C-alpha cells in the first residue's frame, strides 16, 4: 500500500487517538513531574450553624499570585514517583536494611500502598488471564458441538456475565455472597461452616475477586474463540481423523495451532485489562484486603481533595507496567510481522 493511501485510510482513526489519548497522555506525564505550589496558610475565625472555631485557611490571593507565575506548579522531577505513595524508594531501602529475613522485608513492603496494590494486581493478572483463556476455549469447543437450534440462546446466556456492567454486576454478586445471601448460605452449607464469610478474610476476598474476574471475562475469550473455530479448515480435521488422531489430538494439533493468533490477541487484551482491575474491588467493597493500581488512582481522584499529580504518576507507572507485561507478546508479534513483511 502506498504511504499516501495508508495515511488517508488511517487519518480519522489516528486523529481521534492523538486528540483524545496522546495529548492527554503527554499532559499526564507532564503533570506527574510537577507538584502544587506552596500554599499560603493563615488562621482565621470560621463560623457556622454549630458555632465558631479558629481554623487554618488557604490565603487565596497570595496563593493565586504564586500560581499565576507558574500555572503547572513546581517542577519536582521524579520525586512524586519515588514518594511513599508510589515506589517509596526511601521506605523500601529502609525495610531492606532493617530486616534480616525476606519475610520481614516483604511484610514491610506489603505495608506500603503501592506494593500492596501491586501484589494483588500481579496475582490477579497472572491467575485470571490463563484461566480465562482456558475456560473460554472450553466453552467455545462445547458450544460449537451443540445443535444449531441451541447455539443462539447459549451464546446469549454465555454473554450475560459480560453484558451487565462490571460495577453493578459485581455489586449484585456482592449481595449474593453475603453471609446471609444465597451463595453465602450455600457455601456455608457446602463447607459445613456457619461462620464462613467471603468478605472478612483477605484470602477469601482475593479468591472471590478472581473467580468474579474469570466469570466476567470468560465470555470475551469465548466469543473470540468461537469466531475462530468457525474458520478451522475442515479438510485438515478430516485428514487428522483419517490418520487416526483422537479427538484430543485433533484439538491439540489442528485446532489450537489454528487459534494461536487469537490466543495472542486475547492474552494481550486480558493482560492489559486485568492489570487495570478496578470495578470488582469497588463492587465487592474489597478495599480492605485487595487494592490495585487503578484503585489507587481512583482513590487519589475521588478523595476529599483530588490529588491529580499523584494519580498521574500512578497512571504512568501503570502504563509502564502494562508495557513490561506485554513485552514478550509484542516481541513475538514483531517477529511474526517481520516474517510476513519480507
Amino acid at each position, binding site marked *: 500500500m502506498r504511504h499516501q493511501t495508508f495515511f488517508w485510510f488511517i487519518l480519522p482513526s*489516528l486523529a481521534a487517538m492523538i486528540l483524545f489519548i496522546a495529548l*492527554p497522555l503527554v499532559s499526564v506525564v507532564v503533570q506527574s513531574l510537577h507538584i502544587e505550589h506552596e500554599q499560603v496558610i493563615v488562621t482565621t475565625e470560621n463560623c457556622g450553624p454549630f458555632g465558631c472555631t479558629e481554623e487554618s485557611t488557604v490565603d487565596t490571593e497570595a496563593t493565586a499570585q504564586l500560581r499565576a507565575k507558574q500555572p503547572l506548579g513546581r517542577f519536582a522531577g521524579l520525586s512524586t514517583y519515588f514518594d511513599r505513595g508510589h515506589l517509596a524508594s526511601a521506605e523500601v531501602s529502609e525495610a531492606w536494611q532493617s530486616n534480616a529475613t525476606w519475610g520481614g522485608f516483604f511484610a514491610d513492603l506489603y505495608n506500603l500502598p503501592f506494593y500492596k496494590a501491586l501484589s494483588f494486581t500481579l496475582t490477579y493478572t497472572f491467575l485470571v488471564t490463563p484461566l480465562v483463556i482456558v475456560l473460554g476455549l472450553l466453552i467455545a469447543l462445547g458450544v460449537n458441538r451443540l445443535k444449531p437450534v441451541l447455539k443462539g440462546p447459549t451464546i446469549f446466556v454465555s454473554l450475560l456475565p459480560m453484558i451487565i456492567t462490571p460495577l453493578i454486576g459485581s455489586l449484585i454478586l456482592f449481595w449474593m455472597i453475603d453471609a*446471609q445471601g*444465597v451463595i453465602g448460605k450455600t457455601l456455608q452449607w457446602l463447607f459445613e461452616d456457619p461462620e464462613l464469610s467471603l468478605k472478612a478474610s483477605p484470602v477469601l476476598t482475593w479468591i472471590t475477586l478472581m473467580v468474579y474476574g474469570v466469570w466476567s471475562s470468560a465470555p470475551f475469550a469465548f466469543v473470540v474463540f468461537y469466531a475462530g473455530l*468457525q474458520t478451522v479448515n475442515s479438510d485438515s480435521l478430516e485428514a487428522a481423523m483419517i490418520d487416526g488422531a483422537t479427538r484430543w489430538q485433533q484439538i491439540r494439533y489442528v485446532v489450537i495451532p489454528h487459534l494461536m493468533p487469537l490466543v495472542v*490477541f486475547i492474552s494481550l487484551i486480558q493482560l492489559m485489562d486485568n492489570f487495570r482491575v478496578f470495578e470488582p474491588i469497588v463492587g465487592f467493597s474489597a478495599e480492605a484486603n485487595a487494592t490495585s493500581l487503578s484503585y489507587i488512582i481512583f482513590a487519589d481522584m475521588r478523595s476529599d481533595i483530588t490529588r491529580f499529580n499523584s494519580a498521574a504518576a500512578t497512571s504512568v507507572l501503570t502504563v509502564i507496567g502494562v508495557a513490561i507485561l506485554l513485552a514478550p507478546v509484542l516481541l513475538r508479534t514483531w517477529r511474526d*510481522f517481520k516474517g510476513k513483511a519480507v
Partner: protein
Amino acid sequence: MPNPAHRASRSVVFFSSAFVLLWVIIASFPFLWTLWGSFKVQADFFSKADWRYALWGTRTLIETGDTFTGAGYAGAWIQEEFWRAAINTLVVVFFTVLISLTLGTLGGYALARSGQKYAFWLLMIALIFRAMPHITLVSGYLLPFFEWNLWGHLPTSIIVLVAINQPFTLWMLHSFFLNIPKDLDESAKVDGCTQFQAFRHVIIPVMWPGVITTGLFSFLLAYNDFAVTSMLLSEENRTMVPAIYGFLGSTQEEGNVMFAVAAVVSATAPLFVLVMFFQRQIVSGLTAGAVKG
C-alpha cells in the same frame, strides 16, 4: 477400520454437553436470581433475615399484599424517568458503534495491508494508549471541556468513547483483515481499481463477520461505560449505567436499591433482542468461512 474419534464420541458428547450446561447455569444464575428478585421488595431482595425470603417473597407479601410487585419497575421507569436514560444510551451506543467501526475498518484495513514498519509501530503505540486508565484520561478532559462549553453533551461523550475504544477496534479489525487473502484486493487493483475502490467493492462484502464481532465489543463498551459517561454527561443527558448508579444512594442518603435492580434487569432486555437478532449473523456469518486463515 474403527475410528478412534468416533469411538470416543459418546463420552465426549456427554462431557462437553455437561460442561456447557454447567457453564450456562453459572453464567445465568446471578442474572436469573436478580430477575426473580426484581419483583420483590428490598427487604426480600437482600433477605438479611433469611435468604429464602427472596424465593417466597415473605416481606413482599406483608408490604404489598402480593408475592410479586412491579414497584421497582414503576419507580425506575415512570417516576424516575429511566426511559430518558434509555434513549440517551441508545443514541450514544448507536453512534459510538457506527463511528468506531467506520474509523476502525478504514484504519484496520490500512494497517493490515501496509506491511511497513511504521504500521507495526502505530499498532504498538495504539496498544500503549489503551493501557492508560480511563479515569485519568477523563479527569484531564474536564477543564478544557468546561472552558470550550463542550461538557455535558452527548456528541462529546460519543467522540471520547470512540477515541478511547479505537486502539481495541483497530487491533481486532486489523487481525480480521489479515485473514482476508491479499489476492482479493490485489487482483482488483490489477483490474484498475484504486485502493479505495478495491476496499469498497472487494473487501467490504466479505468483512462483515469480523466487523460484527468487533461491533459487538464496541457496543458492550459503550453500553457498559461508567468512567466516561458518569463524568462527561449532564443530568438530562445521563445514560443508563450512571443513572442506575445514581439510584443506589450515597453514604449519607438512602437510595432505592430496587429501582436499580429493576433498571439493571431492564437494561439487559435490549441486549437479548440484539443477540437473538444478530446470532444468525454471528453464527452463520462466521461459518460462511470468509475469514479462512
